């Protein structure tokens, strides 16, 4: 089925937002404004966007540590996400979580996660709740190929299949788990074959082709909403930065990054739009400028925001009822 041009323009602006956010975050990190470490998804935008464009606000997303793009594609606002990365009180989690622990439950984002594979089992519980209530919401669960080696991945896929839960598993295979290439940690070239072993229909897509991801996601969402159970989508993609921003990534062979930059998901979509007369250069430039404005404004907001106040914010919020020892 033909994807409407408005949807393709949404892909364009959303992926640009993710790209520019990630590049800006890396720049701020280089200036010492971002505490701790961040994991950039620049280059991987199509995976998050192609899936999230199929989702409603009341659908759920569980992310991993490379999750800014997933949050933005699901509808998070750049300013509050950036403020969280900077450890400010105006951030989504009051500055208490940071990049790897962002949740925006009002739009279904139930958390990025700092433990590889740590968020995957909770997808089961969210899906159980959906099934319990008899709604047609879906649960997306994002992770990388590295996480597919954690026991939690296997436990979760088995139960998702066994109970026919409305979960869409999205594996962003970016060829490296932390600093180690795929061939050194995973026997199978395609992670999707693991899903087959659990009885879950799976597909491997070009993770840098947002149209292909969107197609695959459409099948998966329809299956989940209609009670058909889980689907596994493996997107082959690549991260431009190292594992964390600042990682020199010497483990990458020369030329590999350049080759993948040649498959930039945003430039590919741009070419598609222009070549097919679906948008003109001015329109696309206009979109890019408005995203740039948005990111600029997000930076001003985040940088000028205050950090949380230890006298009121340190000890509060651990429990619903109990003030601690």
């Amino acid at each position: 089925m033909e994807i409407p041009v408005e949807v393709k323009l949404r892909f364009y602006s959303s992926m640009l937002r993710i790209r520019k956010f990630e590049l800006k975050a890396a720049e701020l990190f280089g200036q010492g404004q971002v505490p701790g470490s961040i994991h950039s998804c620049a280059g991987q935008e199509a995976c998050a966007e192609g899936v999230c464009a199929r989702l409603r606000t009341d659908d759920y997303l569980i992310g991993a540590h490379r999750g800014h793009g997933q949050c933005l594609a699901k509808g998070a606002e750049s300013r509050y996400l950036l403020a969280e990365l900077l450890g400010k009180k105006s951030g989504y989690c009051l500055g208490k979580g940071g990049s790897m622990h962002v949740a925006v439950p009002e739009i279904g984002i139930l958390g990025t996660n700092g433990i590889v594979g740590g968020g995957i089992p909770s997808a089961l519980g969210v899906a159980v709740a959906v099934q319990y209530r008899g709604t047609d919401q879906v649960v997306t669960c994002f992770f990388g190929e590295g996480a597919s080696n954690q026991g939690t991945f296997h436990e979760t896929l088995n139960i998702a299949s066994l109970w026919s839960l409305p979960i869409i598993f999205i594996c962003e295979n970016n060829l490296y788990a932390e600093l180690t290439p795929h061939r050194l940690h995973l026997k199978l070239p395609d992670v999707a074959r693991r899903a087959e072993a659990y009885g879950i229909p799976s597909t491997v897509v070009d993770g840098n082709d947002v149209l292909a991801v969107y197609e695959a996601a459409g099948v998966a969402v329809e299956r989940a909403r209609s009670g058909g159970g889980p689907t596994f989508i493996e997107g082959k993609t690549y991260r431009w930065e190292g594992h964390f921003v600042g990682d020199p990534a010497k483990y990458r062979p020369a030329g590999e990054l350049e080759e993948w930059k040649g498959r930039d998901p945003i430039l590919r979509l741009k070419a598609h739009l222009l070549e097919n007369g679906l948008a003109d250069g001015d329109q696309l430039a206009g979109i890019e400028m408005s995203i740039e404005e948005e990111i600029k404004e997000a930076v001003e907001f985040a940088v000028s925001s205050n950090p949380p106040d230890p006298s009121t914010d340190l000890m509060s919020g651990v429990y619903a009822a109990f003030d601690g020892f």
Partner: protein
Amino acid sequence: MANLNYIRAINVALTEEMERDPDIFLAGEDVGEPGGSFTETRGIWQKYGFRRAKDTPISESAILGIALGAAMAGLRPVVEIMFNDFIGVCADQLFNQIAKARYMFGSKFKLPITIMANCGGGISAGPQHSQSWEAMCMHVPGLKVVMPATVYDAKGLLKAAIRDDDPVVYLHHKALYRLREEISDGDYTVSLGKAAVRKEGRDVTLLAVSAMVHTALKAAGRLEQEGIKAEVIDLRSIVPLDKQTVLDSVKKTGRAVIVHEAVKVAGIGAEVSAMIMEEAFDYLDAPIQRVAAPYVPVPFSPALEKAYLPDEEAVIQAVRKIA
């Protein structure tokens, strides 16, 4: 009134709570159709089916993930980790995910999770099925921990734990399952954060948890014959801890012996002892004693396990040391 045993009281609490609140469901190994490996969930699957009583595969991390995800999505899950020793299998989900999700996500989530697990030794279950891990659960901020010692509390604390909007680890002692009491058959709860004075006294305070409450009471009975009146306090709520009751008692008696089945080193006795020292030092007439298990895994052979577990004699010796 009803004459029940400890495990039946747990079953009654679960049944009543599930009837009262449609957002509660159970998940765990053998908790559905089989009725629970200890009969603790008997009759529930028969009443509600898979929707509210889910038999899971042997996948502890997934079981806790089910609890966390369902809570984040607005339900009130009660899950079982069969033996608290199996927390070792799913420790990330308990300590890094469930315990931290409320705080690190900016207090956006209410996590009304109850995690039932058994604890304790004395039935030759061996090193990996006999431990008491309340100290580990106390040490990571974000969890609440309760350990009922009586049939009354087994029912009341479980109801309170289920109604609590925070994650509660409910540790039921496997050697207490056949303990029998006459208890109210109405709806009641035992508040978290409230210790119980099981026996009043003025000469020494015995602070005990779980099965050791009964050991402490037996020891107190024998000490009474020697003219030593021990006050026995059942802590029953580890997090929140009822500091007030503990301190009031120690200020009255001036002497304290902490009795727990868990290993002495870095057990909850160490925390309670330090707390008493910090907050009631001037009231102490003797150093605080701890009666607890030695620094070895729980041995299998009954001859060794008997020597391993603290008993009345050990409590009496500890009291005599500071009398």
